[in-house]
């Protein structure tokens, strides 16, 4: 079954075409990389899917539904910036997620927070960047969602924290969910991907299974990306 479908999806800001007639079908059970250089439209696509933006043309559906309150209940979204009030302590955040999302698995979240030795009384603003990212990812992945939209989940954190984040993604999504990860740190994520999407100036230039890509090109996704997006 398809979790996310885009039909001729376009978004224009003034005269800038951020997304230009994107057609995509993302199936359940897959981890998919949304890959492209800065400004290629990755965040715009994710924001359209989470209804933070409305399309200029075309449409996007999640499990067959137009984005709205119903789809928000199925979509777990991790924005590319800190979006939570920084005075909140870990325990406040857990409580808030519990209140907001019916699919939030508090035991799962606590298990992960405990294994990292996170201090429940520490406010976000006192945490290191890596810890902050980890806490936000744990909250995002502790929902039993149909679609996870992770916008740059590993940007700006050290390699050990990256490994932790990627392993958390692998071990927490289930077979009926889809995970869409946007990033330009391709070498770090490519081993956990089923499929790669290359976005270039708002257009999809490639959408392929990563093992097939390696097979046909004899290159890693990272190498192939460097070739396609050579400056």
């Amino acid at each position, binding site marked *: 079954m398809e979790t996310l479908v885009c039909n001729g999806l376009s978004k224009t800001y003034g005269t800038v075409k951020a997304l230009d007639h994107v057609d995509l079908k993302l199936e359940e*059970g*897959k*981890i998919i990389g949304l890959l492209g250089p800065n400004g290629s439209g990755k965040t715009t696509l994710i924001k359209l899917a989470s209804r933070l933006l409305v399309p200029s043309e075309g449409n996007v559906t999640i499990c067959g539904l137009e984005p709205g309150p119903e789809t928000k209940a199925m979509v777990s979204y991790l924005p590319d910036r800190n979006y939570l009030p920084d005075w909140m302590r870990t325990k406040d955040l857990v409580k808030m997620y519990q209140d907001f999302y019916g699919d939030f698995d508090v035991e799962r979240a606590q298990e992960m927070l405990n294994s990292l030795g996170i201090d429940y009384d520490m406010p976000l603003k006192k945490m290191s960047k890596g810890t902050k990212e980890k806490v936000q990812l744990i909250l995002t992945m502790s929902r039993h969602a149909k679609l996870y939209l992770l916008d740059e989940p590993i940007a700006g954190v050290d390699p050990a924290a*990256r*490994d932790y984040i*990627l*392993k958390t993604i*692998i*071990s927490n999504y289930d077979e009926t969910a889809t995970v869409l990860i946007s990033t330009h740190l391709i070498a*770090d994520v490519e*081993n*956990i*991907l*089923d499929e790669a999407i290359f976005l270039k100036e708002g257009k999809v230039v490639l959408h392929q299974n*990563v*093992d*097939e890509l*390696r*097979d046909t090109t*004899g*290159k*890693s996704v*990272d*190498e192939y990306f460097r070739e396609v997006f050579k400056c």
Partner: protein
Amino acid sequence: MGWKFSDDTPIYLQIIEEVKTDIVSGKYKTGDKLPAVRDLAYDAGVNPNTVQRAYAELERQGLVQSERTSGRFVSIDDEKIEELRKDLSDFYIRELFRRLRDLGMDDKKIRDVLSKWRDE
């Protein structure tokens, strides 16, 4: 993160080779249970579907049997292990010859250095 993979080959093929090597070396014996898909995916740092694909292929090749509820088990007789060992060693030898020829060595020269290397 996890295992090291080379860039030019699909990851599921590299996992298959890893498991085959473990079988030939005796790390996995007939009747041994393979790690669960999720566990191996976690350790190797790869997508669970990739491990699933590797396991399915090992099953197709008759090296592994799956029991519906309890997991996947190595199922192989000595003859087949020998066959597998030959396949893998053929591959490495072919690779060795290819690389040495790339260095401009002819087959006689390769044989000479190999026997010299063994003696040392």
